[in-house]
């Protein structure tokens, strides 16, 4: 589970605030009540003294008097007990004619006709009101203060973390293949400045490394072309010799194969670098339907030779892009569909406004996603292992997406023209 730093922070703050307020509030209330109770108890003691005085003088217990919110009750008991009990209770206030919370003092007195228990009850409402008022006067401002703090906190945090968010955006939009370097942010906050600088350093390093690798690949591939030309030329010269036997010829065949494979590999590497560097010439509006029709003519002999049936379902679709690259894409998808087919099989080409699909019958099992990796090859593939990764690169350069599906024994390669969310966009 992940949550925003701010949410996490707020949650802790709110929890502490809430429990803190609860604890402080109740402590406050307890203390206040305790002191107010003490006050009432003192008052009750005074009243008791008055009652005792009166009893002593008059030697009769006074008639239940009703004044000062005070009720005094006598009850005759067997045994005199000289213990004073203070406690809370409820009583019916005869003056106000309502039941109120109250406090009483219970103790024994001795009169002539024996021991009595006397209970003096007084209303607590006033003191409770006092407690409430004091509590409110203190708690409400504290609550308001807490709320204001929270709001300020939220605003402040947002402001404070703004550079961080900006930084994150910039890292996300940083792309090795694009010309745009990592954009720095300006912030007065030291920590963010440090982070910013560290990222800038890394991005520069990564960029220069990346450029170096590309340059290296390009140079290496270029440098290999001349020796390859020499090998080719020497092989061609050797082939002209009149003394060629069967064995030499077989060797020559293998050499030719190896050389053309090496050449192709080199060309593919150079092509990849070129696509990466956007060096594929001007973009234009390309009629895909025409391109595919041309491709069918181009591969006509191969299709006939293997007795393949081509099903076409075309809508007129044009895309904006590099003609050369789109040609490579269509031709490669097509030649794959021919190559990995069986004699008498079929190829379906579906071109709609959403996608271009090459579907072919095949004896080969389902492929996995790794076919798009560089230098991944099927067991009996004689290709360079770069074909599909070049195609994927071409489609992503055109804002398209190349995917593979296995449908009832058929291999499908699908070029989606406008993928809604590209999962690889952050790669």
């Amino acid at each position, binding site marked *: 589970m992940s949550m925003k730093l701010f949410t996490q922070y707020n949650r802790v703050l709110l929890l502490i605030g809430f429990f803190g307020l609860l604890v402080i509030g109740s402590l406050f209330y307890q203390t206040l009540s305790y002191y107010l109770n003490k006050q009432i108890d003192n008052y009750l003691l005074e009243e008791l003294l008055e009652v005792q005085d009166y009893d002593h003088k008059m030697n009769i217990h006074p008639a239940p008097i009703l004044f000062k919110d005070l009720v005094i009750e006598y009850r005759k008991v067997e045994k005199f007990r000289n213990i004073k009990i203070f406690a809370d209770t409820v009583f019916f206030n005869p003056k106000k004619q309502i039941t109120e919370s109250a406090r009483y003092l219970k103790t024994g007195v001795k009169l002539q006709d024996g021991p009595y228990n006397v209970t003096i009850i007084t209303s607590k409402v006033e003191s409770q009101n006092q407690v409430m008022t004091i509590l409110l006067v203190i708690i409400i401002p504290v609550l308001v203060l807490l709320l204001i703090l929270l709001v300020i906190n939220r605003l402040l945090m947002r402001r404070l973390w703004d550079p961080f968010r900006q930084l994150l955006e910039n890292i996300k939009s940083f792309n090795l293949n694009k010309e745009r370097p990592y954009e720095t942010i300006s912030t007065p906050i030291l920590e963010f400045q440090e982070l910013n600088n560290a990222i800038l350093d890394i991005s520069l390093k990564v960029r220069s490394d990346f450029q170096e690798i590309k340059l290296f690949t390009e140079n290496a591939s270029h440098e290999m072309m001349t020796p390859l030309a020499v090998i080719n*030329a*020497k092989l061609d010269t050797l082939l002209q010799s009149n003394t060629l036997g069967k064995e030499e010829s077989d060797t020559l065949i293998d050499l030719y194969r190896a050389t053309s494979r090496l050449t*192709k590999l080199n060309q593919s590497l150079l092509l990849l670098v070129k696509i990466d560097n956007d060096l594929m010439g001007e973009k234009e509006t390309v009629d895909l339907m025409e391109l595919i029709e041309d491709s069918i003519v181009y591969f006509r002999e*191969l299709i006939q030779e293997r007795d393949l049936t081509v099903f076409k379902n075309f809508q007129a679709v044009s895309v904006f892009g590099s003609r050369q690259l789109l040609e490579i894409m269509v031709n490669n998808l097509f030649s794959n569909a021919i190559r990995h087919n069986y004699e008498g099989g079929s190829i379906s080409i579906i071109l709609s406004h959403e996608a271009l699909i090459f579907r072919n019958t095949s004896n080969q099992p389902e492929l996995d996603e790794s076919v798009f990796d560089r230098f991944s090859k099927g067991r009996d593939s004689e290709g360079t292992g770069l074909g599909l990764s070049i195609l994927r690169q071409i489609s992503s350069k055109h804002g398209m997406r190349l995917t593979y599906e296995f449908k009832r024994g058929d291999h499908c390669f699908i070029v989606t023209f406008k993928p809604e969310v590209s999962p690889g966009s952050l790669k």
Partner: protein
Amino acid sequence: MKLLIIEDEASLRSSIQKYLTAEGNVCDIAGNFDNAYQKIAIYEYDCILLDLGLPGGEGLDLLRFLRKEQKEDGVLIISARDSIEQKIEGLSLGADDYLVKPFHLSELYARIHAVVRRRQQKGNNIISFNEIEIDVLAKEIKVYGVTVYFTRKEFDLLLYFVSNKSKVISKAAAAVHIWGDNADMADSFDYIYTHIKNIRKKLTDAGCRDYFQSVYGVGYKFQ
């Protein structure tokens, strides 16, 4: 034909020279900029094979010099540089063709033929070989004056062989000529066999002699 090979890689230069020196062709060679400059300033060639990166200078400067002097020599650039910009620059400076290294000698020879044909035989697009006539512009083939239907690839292949007559052309070279970038197809060599078989049949059916000669499965010779 009089040809000049400007190429700094000695072994490549000698191979090209050896392949091209036949049938009355004359091949001059130059291994650096100054040498090449002297030769093109003095002599006239049917076709100049021009490498771009030369010791002592840039090949394109030789091309500029040729155009400034309004020389009519055909120029075929042979270079390892394969960027579109490079090709466009070379061609717009007046080169007739651009061949990227590595290439097969048979391909080079066929291209030279095409360059020379375009430059010299103005209005004459017919190549004759005994009873065979090839109309390069109309892409037509006639045997004893009768048109024989050839597919585009069969036509290209026959023209390729006729341009390299008496030379052995490897299947690999033929595959690259026909399929270009898609020549890496595993069985493209086998398709060449099929193509040749079809061409042979079409020609012999039209009463033509069979000029194709198989060389131990490596390639074919047309003579």
